[in-house]
């Protein structure tokens, strides 16, 4: 195996996804989610993780992925950006595994488009590996909406 990278595999709406574990801080069950008004649709709400308030994002909505079936949303994956921390919802956490970066194939036509920039590639088992660094550095993620009262 060449250039192995540790990834955290999880499932969301019957799709298998994986993120690089270097960005993952910990996994937490999704509890006491408080919806937050005046936020983009991909912000599901905020949760309290050991005294810290963490916003929770839905990657599917963020990446404009097609909605396929119902989601379970049992877990949040706490990921760390440069100066902030967000939670990403997941249905099932499969586990940590190592994959070779070389074996990643370019994204399929279905994922081409505006959002393909956030994907690293797809393994032979159709595991979509997200490029979390780009996601977290994207400006959209900084919410700055003003609600006129």
């Amino acid at each position, binding site marked *: 195996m060449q250039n192995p990278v540790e990834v*955290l595999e999880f499932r969301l709406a019957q799709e298998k996804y994986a993120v690089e574990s270097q960005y993952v801080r910990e996994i937490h*069950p999704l509890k006491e989610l408080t919806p937050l008004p005046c936020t983009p649709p991909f912000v599901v709400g905020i949760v309290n993780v050991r005294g810290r308030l963490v916003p929770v994002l839905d990657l599917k909505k963020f990446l404009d992925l097609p909605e396929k079936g119902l989601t379970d949303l049992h877990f949040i994956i706490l990921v760390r950006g440069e100066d902030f921390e967000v939670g990403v919802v997941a249905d099932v956490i499969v586990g940590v595994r190592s994959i070779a970066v070389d074996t990643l194939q370019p994204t399929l036509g279905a994922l081409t488009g505006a959002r393909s920039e956030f994907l690293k590639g797809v393994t032979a088992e159709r595991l979509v590996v997200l490029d979390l660094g780009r996601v977290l550095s994207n400006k959209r993620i900084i919410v700055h909406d003003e609600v006129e009262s």
Partner: protein
Amino acid sequence: MKWSVGTKMGAGFGAVLLIFVIVGLLSYRSTTQLIGASEWRQHTYKVLGQLDAVLSSLQDVETGQRGYLLTGDEKYLEPYQNGLGKIDASLKEVRRLTVDNPRQQSRLDALEPLVKNRLALAKETIDVRRAGSAEGAVQIIKSGRGKAFMDAVRKVISEMKSEEDELLQTRSAETQTNANRMQWTILVGMLVALMLGALAGFVITRNIARPLQNLTAIAERITVGDLQANISSNGRADEVGVLAKTFDRMTLSLRTMAGAAEEIAAGDLRTSIKPKSANDVLGNAFAKMVQNLREQTLQLIEGASVLSTSASEIVASTTQLASSATESATAVSETTTTVEEVRQTAEVTSQKAKGVSDSAQKAAEISDKGRRSADAATIGMNRIRQQMAAISESMTRLSEQSQTIGQIIATVEDLSAQSNLLAVNAAIEAAKAGEHGKGFGVVAQEVKSLSEQSRQATNQVRTILNDIQKATTAAVLATEQGSKAVEAGEKQTEDAGESIQKLAGSVAEAAQAATQIAASSQQQLVGMEQVAVAMESVKQASTQNVASARQLETAARNLDELGQQLKHMVERYKV
């Protein structure tokens, strides 16, 4: 003789009575005389007694004197003193009794001085002796004066006694004569009275009893109905003659009545009898009888003609009756046959009813058993219901416990999810540690694998539990349905029990009714047999009836002939 019967009888009995009165008077006088004579005899005996007493007293004096003289003892003077006291009284009595007899009085005059002298002598001797001179006293006695005095006294008393005896004899003879004469008088008087009475009786019998006997004989003949006797009064004007004339008139009257009766007997009712007075019972009765006979005979004639007609009608009716009786007898015979058939039918019915009754009894017994079974079924259903309730409770508990198991499984699942999460986090941490975290990563991988196994096991348990819960739910539902079914079954069993109960009651009633029917049928059979016997009797009676009707017809014919004869007989009466 123109004397009446009473006068004749008075005269006869009067003569006899007169003679009896005369004889009675004579007897009375004679008896009075006898009483007087008896008194005189008594008087004489008294005089004799007193004379004896004087003599006895003197002897007493003498005895006392002698005793004293001999002994000188005063005690021997007691008879002397007694004699002295009595002598004077006796002498006085004799004088009183013989006062009507001068001879006896003169003798008494002689006796008294003698007695005095004797007493004086006695006194003298006693005095001498008392003076002490016994010799002197003996001298006095030896003088013989005392004896002379006593002899004189004895002589006088003896004379007096003989005088009295003579008097007694004279008076006795006189009394005897009187009595004899009286006897004769009574005898003769009795004979005369007897003869006179017999004569009077004969004459009265001759004059009264014989004509009365004759009349009695005639009355006797009249009593037996012989009215032909002739009665003659013989010209007597007394009661007997009057009686004879009255008898004659009575027989004449009776003869007239007899003649009238003979005419009536001959059938001539035209005679009219006039009663001789208002009290003529026989005449009145005869007149009434003739009147009544006349009316009755008229009615009789009418009646005889009606009877004759009726008898003819009766003959016609009895002929019809006889033929009807014959028809009736035939009908009765047919009825008897029918009744016999009905009786046989009733017998069959009775037997059938008996069979039905027996079957009903068996049915009643079976229904009783059914009732008991129904009761047992009810009890069984009740037990099933209780057991179903217990099952239901158990199922509920089972359901609750599988719920609890579900909760425990959830907890275990949660634990497995958390340990999985922990394993993932540990793996992440191990990855962060790089080369140093490799071993930790293996451990995390193992933990993850364990959690995965436990999750799978939990999933299997859950699957099984789900199956169990499903099965339990189905069982609970089945139990509920079973409970309901049991309740329904219980209710139905109860209904069935009630129905069987009612059925048993009905069957029992039916059995009773069947028994009653059998009894009634038996009674009916008995009744029918009685009816058959009765019908037989009716048949016999009917046969007898026919015979009787024939006899009746004959009798009616006889009656008809009798009516004709009666009509002829009644026509003989002249009214």
